């Protein structure tokens, strides 16, 4: 989230699209009902299904799964055509006026530079034209034909309301009604919040779905604003923490990136990371990259990390390709990965194309499952009849199960969607032989270390030198780790203004990331978390509910990264003179000498407004990008591509149907189905009664939603002779499932490109362990294709067939 949960109450318009907050985030959804009850907010819901969120919507509009960019592109065109823009904001705070290189273009579904063989673009033309002064050229009138603004206008010309209806099946009148309401927030003192989740990410163009809404929010001036923002609703209580702390195969903590093979040394690595300002006087905060990186390696290897050895740069892995989950299972399937530690994950039910996942696990030599529950993954080898029809005797994988504590049985911090780090304490003792995840990891490390000490090895250094200062080496305390993550001072740093004083004293906790250093005198596990455990103590444990001016910030409740800032880019909440866009939108303002206000300024506090420093301090431009240059693999503007399985083809460009750079492994392309055999669009989702595959182990939850079902519309049900509560079979080109039929008006028949389109909804929560009735996983059906930028699988749009079956129970 750029904003925070509580702030949703400040919204004037709430758009839930690409998510279903009422269903999957019922507690956070309370802020939607607050905004409606006390701020007269309008709620818009756009979804393939009429969801629980839609039940409270002022306007609901159905959409064919996987066509969000067509819809959002239509909104962009509406705003541009009807001049519903926050003009001052667009001009000053975005790159609308920047000039793009001459070579850039878009034709017949492809941007310039496409290489069909490699399924990739040469993105060099997707960039700004640079002036002789080394800065980007711009045209403040935004009339230059190659200005971002004009290129955007041209790009979205095709996205007419008629085209939106043709592609998405969304009725034109509903679409226009929604555009009208969204457009009201172009007023400087109005804001819309965008609440989305995996309904946008789990597509072959997931990142661009989100980009498309970000463009809308920038045109409306809704980023950095109270009640505005791009708000990703995270699906676990600590999944924000997972990405923050770098638990992705290509990241290290704080969104620093792992080096790749072409970066053999530190100097080479830093060349592409310390961005120089692209406009005069801009902050370009990543200029501090080195400080964060060196402080990280110092926290890993302490004294062993020195300037002479590039602070152990060589000890970090260098990527040849991205090792996301799809690739990991592809490699297992090929027999190239043969051991797997599975911690807090249930891939047998979660990852697409279950047949392939089960086959991959069966090829492993060993599988270690670290989990509080009996997962299907841990039992993948067990025959459960039709729900897990395997030949146990033929599987040689050795499985180790290490039971861990649940969140309520351990102490530590959870980072919520709104970037709040909230400390929690154990509410119950762990049962039986259960150990905490930290304890398990600690013992693994110590045993590996002992093996290296005893036997040596090709590359023992990173293990042998890992800083391990914990009082009980086998049981590092969460407090010890939290302090390490915050960072601490290794050597005194004198005050540059007064030699008699010290800026930093060795042994002290870091007060925040601003004083981190690239000379090895500071250590910090995760720079964005610096400030969470300062010399003043554990900031995450703060529990002061005071909320000045009822602004929805509660600045002394827990701690928010970065620097306890509650709303990112909050400089944009004030106009060019530093005055808030409206009294109800006040966040920070310029008081003549400094920036001050309700939130911690996301900005140099002494930057005078007239200096023209942009609010988007992480970008070297200082402005937000309507045109993303070469940052996205699949285009600088979001473009509509069909899901890899589509019922209609792509009405916008017949030849380029689906995302031309989305990643597909050999063998997976062949198991995509076509509309001829699988005529219906399917999508998958969570239900409120359950949390992934956990809560089915709880009797109460199991009784509230006991059995797998599939939702289908009345027209399709009639056509297929399926009645409510009948058993039905749903098949894709990869497998089939049996489920109860829920025939509902909430699945509406759509008309897309002249063709009737039926959609089918498949919830994900059942399996063969737990208290519910046994059921199939939706991943029997889902395709193995990943988003072009971050490889998230396309769970949300694929093709199936359905039929009524008779089951003797």
């Amino acid at each position, binding site marked *: 989230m750029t904003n925070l949960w509580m702030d949703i109450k400040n919204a004037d318009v709430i758009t839930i699209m690409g998510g279903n907050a009422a269903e999957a985030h019922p507690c956070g*959804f*309370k802020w939607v009902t607050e905004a409606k*009850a006390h701020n007269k907010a309008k709620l818009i819901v756009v979804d393939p299904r009429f969801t629980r969120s839609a*039940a409270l919507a002022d306007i609901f509009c159905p959409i064919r799964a996987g066509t969000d960019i067509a819809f959002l592109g239509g909104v962009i065109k509406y705003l541009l055509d009807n001049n519903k823009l926050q003009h001052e904001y667009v001009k000053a705070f975005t790159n609308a006026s920047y000039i793009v290189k001459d070579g850039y273009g878009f034709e017949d579904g492809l941007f310039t530079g496409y290489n069909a063989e490699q399924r990739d673009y040469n993105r060099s033309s997707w960039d700004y034209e640079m002036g002789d002064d080394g800065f980007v050229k711009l045209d403040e009138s935004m009339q230059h034909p190659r200005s971002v603004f004009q290129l955007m206008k041209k790009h979205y010309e095709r996205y007419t309301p008629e085209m939106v209806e043709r592609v998405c099946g969304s009725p034109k009148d509903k679409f226009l009604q929604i555009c009208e309401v969204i457009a009201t927030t172009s007023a400087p003192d109005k804001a819309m919040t965008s609440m989305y989740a995996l309904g946008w990410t789990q597509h072959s163009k997931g990142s661009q779905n989100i980009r498309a809404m970000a463009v809308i929010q920038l045109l409306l001036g809704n980023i950095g604003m109270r009640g505005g923002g791009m708000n990703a609703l995270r699906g676990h209580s600590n999944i924000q923490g997972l990405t923050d702390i770098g638990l992705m195969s290509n990241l290290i903590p704080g969104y620093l990136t792992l080096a790749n093979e072409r970066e053999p040394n530190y100097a080479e690595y830093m060349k592409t990371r310390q961005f120089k300002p692209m406009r005069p006087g801009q902050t370009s905060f990543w200029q501090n990259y080195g400080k964060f990186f060196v402080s990280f390696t110092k926290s890993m290897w302490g004294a062993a990390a020195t300037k002479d050895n590039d602070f152990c740069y060589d000890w970090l892995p260098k990527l040849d390709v991205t090792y996301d989950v799809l690739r990991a299972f592809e490699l297992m399937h090929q027999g190239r990965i043969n051991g797997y530690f599975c911690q807090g994950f249930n891939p047998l039910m979660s990852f697409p194309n279950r047949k392939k996942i089960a086959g991959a696990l069966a090829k492993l030599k060993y599988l270690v499952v670290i989990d509080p529950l009996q997962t299907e993954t841990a039992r993948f080898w067990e025959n459960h009849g039709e729900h897990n029809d395997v030949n146990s005797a033929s599987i040689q994988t050795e499985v180790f199960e290490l039971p861990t504590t649940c969140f309520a049985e351990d102490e530590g911090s959870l980072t919520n969607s709104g970037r709040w780090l909230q400390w929690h304490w154990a509410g119950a003792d762990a049962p039986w032989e259960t150990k905490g995840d930290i304890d398990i990891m600690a013992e693994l490390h110590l045993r590996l270390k002992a093996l290296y000490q005893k036997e040596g090895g090709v590359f023992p250094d990173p293990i042998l030198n890992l800083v391990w200062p914990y009082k009980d080496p086998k049981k590092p305390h969460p407090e010890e780790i939290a302090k390490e993550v915050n960072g601490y001072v290794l050597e005194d740093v004198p005050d540059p203004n007064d030699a008699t004083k010290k800026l930093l004293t060795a042994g002290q906790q870091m007060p925040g990331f601003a004083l981190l250093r690239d000379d090895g005198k500071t250590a910090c596990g995760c720079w964005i978390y610096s400030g969470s455990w300062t010399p003043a103590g554990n900031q995450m444990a703060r529990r002061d509910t005071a909320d000045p001016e009822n602004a929805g910030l509660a600045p002394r409740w827990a701690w928010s990264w970065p620097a306890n800032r509650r709303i990112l880019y909050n400089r944009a909440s004030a106009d060019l003179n530093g005055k808030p866009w409206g009294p109800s939108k006040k966040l920070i303002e310029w008081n003549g000498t400094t920036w001050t206000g309700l939130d911690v300024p996301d900005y140099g506090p002494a930057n005078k407004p007239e200096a023209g420093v942009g609010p988007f301090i992480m970008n070297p431009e200082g402005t937000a990008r309507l045109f993303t240059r070469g940052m996205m693999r699949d285009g600088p503007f979001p473009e509509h591509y069909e899901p890899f399985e589509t019922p209609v083809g792509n009405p916008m460009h017949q030849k380029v149907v689906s995302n031309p750079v989305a990643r597909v492994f050999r063998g997976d392309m062949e198991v995509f189905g076509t509309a001829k055999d699988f005529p219906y669009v399917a999508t998958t989702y969570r239900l409120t009664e359950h949390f992934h595959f956990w809560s089915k182990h709880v009797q109460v939850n199991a009784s509230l939603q*006991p059995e*797998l079902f599939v939702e289908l519309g009345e027209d399709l049900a009639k056509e297929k002779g399926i009645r409510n509560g009948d058993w039905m079979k749903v098949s894709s080109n990869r497998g089939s499932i049996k489920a*109860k039929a829920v025939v509902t*008006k909430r699945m509406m028949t759509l008309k897309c490109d002249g063709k009737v389109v039926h959609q089918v909804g498949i919830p994900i929560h059942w399996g063969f362990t737990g208290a519910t*009735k046994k059921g199939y996983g939706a991943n029997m059906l889902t395709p193995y294709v990943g988003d072009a930028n971050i490889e998230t699988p396309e769970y949300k749009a694929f093709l199936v067939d359905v039929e009524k079956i008779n089951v003797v129970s």
Partner: protein
Amino acid sequence: MALDLMRRSASSTPAGSLSGPTTEVAKLIDISKCIGCKACQAACLEWNDLREEVGVNTGVYDNPHDLTENSWTLMRYSEVVADNGNLEWLIRKDGCMHCADPGCLKACPSPGAIVQYTNGIVDFVKENCIGCGYCVKGCPFNIPRISKADHKAYKCTLCSDRVNVGQGPACAKACPTQAITFGTKAAMIAQAQTRITDLKERGYKNAGLYDPPGVGGTHVMYVLQHADRPQIFAGLAKDPTISPLVDLWKGMLKPIAMVGIGLTALAGVFHYMTKGPNRVDAHDEEAAAREMRRKAS
């Protein structure tokens, strides 16, 4: 808030309040804020230490499919196409309405098995229940259910145990969107009015409060988007009244109530004749064990 008795089933003298007048309480269920998450159902099961069996799906979201002796509250989902052609998914939390004029209490032949407190809560007193099921017949909302384990009647208590110590009902506490709130009846009516104003501004011209006069008003009230048609909310009674049969029964039963023990025996015979001998299965055993634990705690 101490719970003083106002009325007692099958007793000629009402038990007057000992501590003076008590403020009437009410639970307000705002359907326009309800997302159907079933947190109220889970909270009810947890607080009352009850468990519902893991059933099956019958083509709807309603689970279990009806109120039971364990499920004292239940979300009921209705898909309705409104006059303007828009689909509405109306989700109503069903359960005891705690009528000011309770049909169950009037119908109950067993002295003190059903009581009404001065704050308006209608409660079943299990020790006095003879399992005759007349409360079911007397209820204009079809709420009480007879347990298969101990053959006594059960329904929502409005968490009288929590209210007695100054807390709101468990369902209201668990509700994430404040669709369920609890307070004095006057405060709840006032709150409903602000919601109705908001709904009318949003185009629900018939939004209104459900507090049916036919049963003297209720201590569980709804904010309905379409108060003119309560039936579309999963069959909510439009003008609920107590069946005239109840008064008829009362006339016949009053004398018999004097011989309470005899009646209990009679009811047993009646039960045997209509339902056959009691059989204890594993489920009953489990429910009984749970019951023992509850008594112990």
